[in-house]
């Protein structure tokens, strides 16, 4: 039993987004970026009265003549090939609607999933009727972005055995801009848990599955209780991910593992306290600088 009430005044300054360096080019919505007409209008900007204004809060980035503003807090802008995690919110004609923290709901077509058993066959009317038995409202899936429609709506696919329905575990939601794009987003961490870092800022933590179990595409869910040690690892990883996100650190396998190791001297629930978060994140930052990654 513990209760921890703090005063707002005892909190230090807000998270240091730029680690002591002066970014120098932070704008808020409506700020004039330049009055020079020689620049091109990129994402996060708009033109008004011959001036280029910012439409979001963030840092100005310039590539040759293209000026854009990159916001630290944003919805997910999908790109083809991204790994995402989403939650099924609705069933429609031959498709599932999936919430992926994008501006519009994403769709997963019946024709772009592997049916249970990994069978590759034509989708019949029977399959259409059985859709809810494969995925129903509330289910979490991992998927890949197959296509971005003209209106920004994402079309997903799960036509690989590594994608599909997710079983037991914890979902953590962070800002999509904090997830670093890498070659692989699926990791079996050596500490005994699996992590999927969705490009959309959804992060899935689960106990590591045996090789054979991974081949079902996730349609058979294992509802056996997870062991206490696995649960502790998952909870610690969850708190580490949230700690890193709280201090605006990029999330990828190395940073999360560093945070996990740095957190070992604290108990899992201590990681919810701000001073412990600051301590752990500082250690991670130092180690990353030392290793030059």
């Amino acid at each position: 039993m513990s209760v921890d009430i703090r005063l707002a005044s005892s909190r230090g300054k807000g998270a240091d987004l730029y680690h002591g360096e002066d970014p120098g080019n932070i704008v808020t919505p409506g700020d004039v970026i330049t009055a020079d007409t020689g620049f091109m209008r990129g994402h996060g900007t708009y033109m008004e009265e011959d001036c280029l204004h910012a439409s979001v809060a963030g840092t100005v980035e310039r590539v040759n003549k293209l000026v854009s503003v990159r916001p630290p807090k944003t919805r997910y802008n999908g790109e083809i090939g991204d790994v995402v995690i989403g939650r099924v919110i609705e069933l429609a004609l031959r498709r599932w609607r999936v919430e992926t923290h994008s501006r519009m709901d994403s769709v997963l077509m019946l024709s772009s999933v592997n049916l249970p058993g990994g069978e590759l066959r034509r989708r019949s009317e029977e399959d259409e009727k059985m859709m809810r038995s494969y995925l129903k409202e509330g289910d979490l899936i991992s998927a890949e972005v197959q296509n971005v429609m003209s209106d920004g709506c994402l079309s997903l696919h799960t036509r690989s055995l590594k994608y599909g329905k997710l079983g037991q575990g914890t979902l953590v939601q962070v800002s999509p801009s904090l997830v670093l794009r890498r070659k692989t987003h699926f990791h079996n961490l050596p500490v005994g848990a699996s992590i999927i870092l969705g490009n959309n800022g959804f992060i899935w933590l689960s106990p590591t599955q045996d090789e054979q179990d991974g081949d079902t595409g996730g349609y058979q869910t294992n509802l056996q209780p997870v062991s206490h040690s696995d649960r502790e690892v998952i909870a610690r990883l969850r708190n580490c991910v949230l700690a890193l996100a709280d201090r605006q650190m990029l999330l990828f396998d190395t940073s999360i593992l560093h945070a996990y190791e740095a957190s070992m001297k604290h108990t899992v629930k201590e990681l919810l306290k701000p001073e412990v978060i600051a301590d752990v994140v500082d250690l991670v930052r130092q180690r990353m600088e030392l290793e030059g990654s």
Partner: protein
Amino acid sequence: MADVNLSEAEKTFILHSVQDNFRDDGRSCEDFRHMEIETGLISNTNGSARVRLASTDVLVGVKVQLSPVDPENPEVGRMEFFLDCSANATPEFEGRGGEELASEITALLTRAYGCPSTMDYPSLCVLPGQQCWLLYVDILLLECGGNLFDAMSLAVKAALFNTKVPNVTMTKDEGGIELDVSDDPYDFKRLDVTGAPLVVTVNKIGHFHVVDASEKEEACSLARIMLGVTQTGTITAMKKEGSGSLDADSISDMMESAKKVGVLLNKSLLKALGEEEEQGTEAVGFLR
């Protein structure tokens, strides 16, 4: 409360985690999440407080006004609660969406504070039988992150602690008594909140119960009871919510934990508020 739609497997995971007494963020069943509190941050109220419990964010303002006494209780002051669920918290609150939740919470708070021992109501009566102070407690819900009832009751108690009721001078002239409210900002009296209750919500998940449930845990719980608990462990109000039924034995178990946690919560809150009073730092507010 915002609806969280969880998959079967996630629910199972949470259910087993409660059974294991090791929740998904590492807390045990009777642990509260980290919270942050600040009082006196709105200058145009008599008392204000903001509580941030994990991601639940609540702002409370207290305004006092002289008004006619309640004819049924002519010798005591009055208190009224009003809750506004901002649509910023969740889009479901847009329009009239938050009204049901608002009336539920204000009803419980009214009941919890209705017990005469919770506040020194007679001292809020200015002129027995005629005028008393009416405390308008306005609650603004800014963000939902689970356990709204507890966070709100914490903020209400903190705001009442911070409330400065101006002193009144009475002059007798022909035709009656004239009341004169002091304009001097340093001429006030404070309220005694040592007896004020805090709401503790106990959620039943599987065969076990947890306090301070996150939104995900609330989605897994079928029945919960809310209790108004004072610092001495007196229960001033009780309400059961949810579709599930509860055993008499489990209710008494849940009440025991709520009492234990409630006493500790009251003590920690008053300690934190006392510290803030001593430090007397500038308002932090929402910037930082």
